[in-house]
């Protein structure tokens, strides 16, 4: 069977695909080897005329134990240790290295509610909660080639922002702020969803991520800002979604 993952359009998604690929090869080899022994035993050592007795061994001899421990250890090093080392390196070097001090990073505040996502960027003044904030519902527009730094909160239950084409998801939790970052490498529309069961409308909690080339993004941003200024209403409930980025994690 041909398994097709959604097209990876992110800077670091290949690391996830690489981990899955390595896992598939490593566990595949282990599985095929074990299956081979298993099937061989079933065929060769089935009870039949001339084979009514099994071998009388408890497998408690030093040699037997050494063999089982050695195989388990080899598996552990070849699969687990390799994966853990690799994952730790990638997490610390890439996924958990947040662009806190990168001036090019686009900062986005994500607020989840039953059953929609709202995305807020700070606008030209660089501050959240001001009239030039660009707030979009169920659509996140990002520039290609710049890191996008997300911080998430939830107004009601636990949700999980899921970007299959960017190979990650991160929960949005009431009462705390979580974060993630990614970078688009090609322009295009991909789906955004909720991965955590959040009630009867869970399926409908879906939107789009639109990655735009630099020029396209600037044009979109200018239009969106004008719109936002016209629509800004400090008394609206959604205005309370904004928080102070520096102090509020």
């Amino acid at each position: 069977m041909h398994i097709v993952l959604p097209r990876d359009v992110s800077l670091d998604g290949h690391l996830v695909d690489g981990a899955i690929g390595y896992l598939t090869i490593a566990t595949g080899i282990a599985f095929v080897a074990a299956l081979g022994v298993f099937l061989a035993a079933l065929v060769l050592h089935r009870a039949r005329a001339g084979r009514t007795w099994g071998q009388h061994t408890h497998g408690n001899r030093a040699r037997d134990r050494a063999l089982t421990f050695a195989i388990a250890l080899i598996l552990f090093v070849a699969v687990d240790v390799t994966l853990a080392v690799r994952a730790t390196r990638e997490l610390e070097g890439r996924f958990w290295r947040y662009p806190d001090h990168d001036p090019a990073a686009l900062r986005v505040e994500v607020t989840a509610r039953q059953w929609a996502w709202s995305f807020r960027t700070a606008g030209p003044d660089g501050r959240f909660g001001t009239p030039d904030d660009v707030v979009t519902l169920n659509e996140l527009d990002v520039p290609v080639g710049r890191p996008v730094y997300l911080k998430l909160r939830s107004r009601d239950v636990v949700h999980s922002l899921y970007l299959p084409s960017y190979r990650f998801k991160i929960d949005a939790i009431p009462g705390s702020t979580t974060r993630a970052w990614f970078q688009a490498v090609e322009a295009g529309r991909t789906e955004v969803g909720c991965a955590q069961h959040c009630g009867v409308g869970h399926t409908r909690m879906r939107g789009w991520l639109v990655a735009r080339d630099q020029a396209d993004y600037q044009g979109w941003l200018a239009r969106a800002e004008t719109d936002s200024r016209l629509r800004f209403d400090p008394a609206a409930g959604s205005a309370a979604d904004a928080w102070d980025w520096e102090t509020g994690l």
Partner: protein
Amino acid sequence: MDTETGPLPAAPTGFWRRYVFSTDHKVIGRQFLFLGLGFLAVGGIMAMLIRWQLARPGDPVPVVGRLFFHSAGGVISPPAYTALFTMHGTIMIFFAVTPILIGGFGNFLLPLLIGARDMAFPRLNMASYWTMAAATGVLCASFFVPLGPPQAGWTAYATLSTALGAPGVGQTLWVIAIYLNGASSVMGAVNYITTVLRLRAPGMTYLRLPLTVWGLFLTSILNALFVPVLGAAMVLLLFDRLFGTQFFTAGTTPGAGGDPILYQHLFWLFGHPEVYILILPAWGIVGDLLSFFARKPAFGYRVTVGALVGVVVLSAVVYGHHMFTTGLSPLLGESFMVLTMIISVPTALLVLNWLGTLWRGAIRFSVPMLFCLGMVFTFGVGGLTGLYLADVVADMYLHDTYFVVGHFHLIMAAALLLSLFAAVYFWYPKMFGRMLGERLGRWHFWLTFVPLNLVFMGQLVIGLEGMQRRLYDPSVYEAWRRLAPLNRSISHAAYLLGAAQLLFVWNFFVSLRRGRTAPANPWEVGTLEWSVPSPPPHHNFDTIPVVVRGPHELADPAARPLGRDWLSQTEVLDEPAPGLPVPRGRS
């Protein structure tokens, strides 16, 4: 561990004392078994309905649709669908597998396998069953309350499970049912642990216990330690729901009030050991049965026992891998990843010992053995796919997708179901005095094993392609529309799987009356339960047996003069035949 003295306890006579409020572990075991099998059927029908919705979102359910979903014209509505997957998970874990494997086989087998006349506390045992029965009553009551049954998933994450996300009475009843279910499990654990510690027959040392007993014993230890943690979460959730406290709810601003993630910590601190609570008895049963039907001692018995103990020790410190996407601190995230991976060492030892047991055996492909071999296969796939989810990087993509569903169903559903059937086919003669039909059993195996793997491996594929769990209608997502044919195929395999269980139901009930009468020891093995008649008398053993060897003495040369390849655990051999090694007292 001295021998039982005094007169044999008399069997009760009246109907109520004998079949309903019985304190006989064999009766209670069968009560648990029937209750669990009943709920297995209910949970299975729910799975079929879920699969119907995933195959044909929004189409009316044929035949039973009008009955179950009357107001919606036979269509499964979103609330009905959420309720279905919530109850499917709850029922299968807490009210099907738990009562069957732990309550049913645990009760029936423990005293028989260790050479005791009953459990240490027979009345507590009865209370444990009736507490479970009360829990099922409370759970079923939730179907008939305003706003319907619970819909927060079997994990019932706060705040979806608090009054904020689930205002109905159904969720409150769910909390109470889970608490009662846990109380029943703890009563059972107190009983099982005491029984194994105190009531073993003379000579039944710890390293002569059948692996089934080891599995049940370790499960009971985990039950005693971690079910109370779930109890704590349920108490706090109940306070939040009934009295308006705010342990698990929080404002939008961080720092104010309770913490929804606290619920997840408590839930998974129980929830991960729970996985082992369920699988440990299955591991034990499969370990014994592989040896019995390979006609060869269990390979590396001591290493296997050590591995089981190792899993128990590790089980509590790996739970964080369920929470990688909640923004755990890097230190916690990496620690949980490494600890989770370490647990693959004892598991690998276990599987290697199973292979070692089969190697150079004289394997008999009886029906229980078929199910055991099937279990080894699906457990292998299920275990290896677990590594994907232990890896934080891969988990960022795979978490909460169908890959997770496929992985845990391969273990919790496929491997557990297969070992559960193995146990039924193996011990049915001892329980009911009749043999299950062999031919039907073989059909049942193949028609279960093949679709089971198609369903859950299909789910692995769908998950790798990215589809989330718990979606009412995947076609809402453009990206998942191309998965529709595969989703339909999975559903068809699931219907086949469901239909095949009718063979089992038929076989089970018809054999009760018309099955071949079971001899005392149909499988020719040496553990204690096969040394008494089928079914055993009320007091199990006329005289408490004296155990002289381990549970897997098959193919022992010392048995050759007896004209068979097995030795009973109690058999005292005369002078060893010249030229043969002296059989050692310990296995």
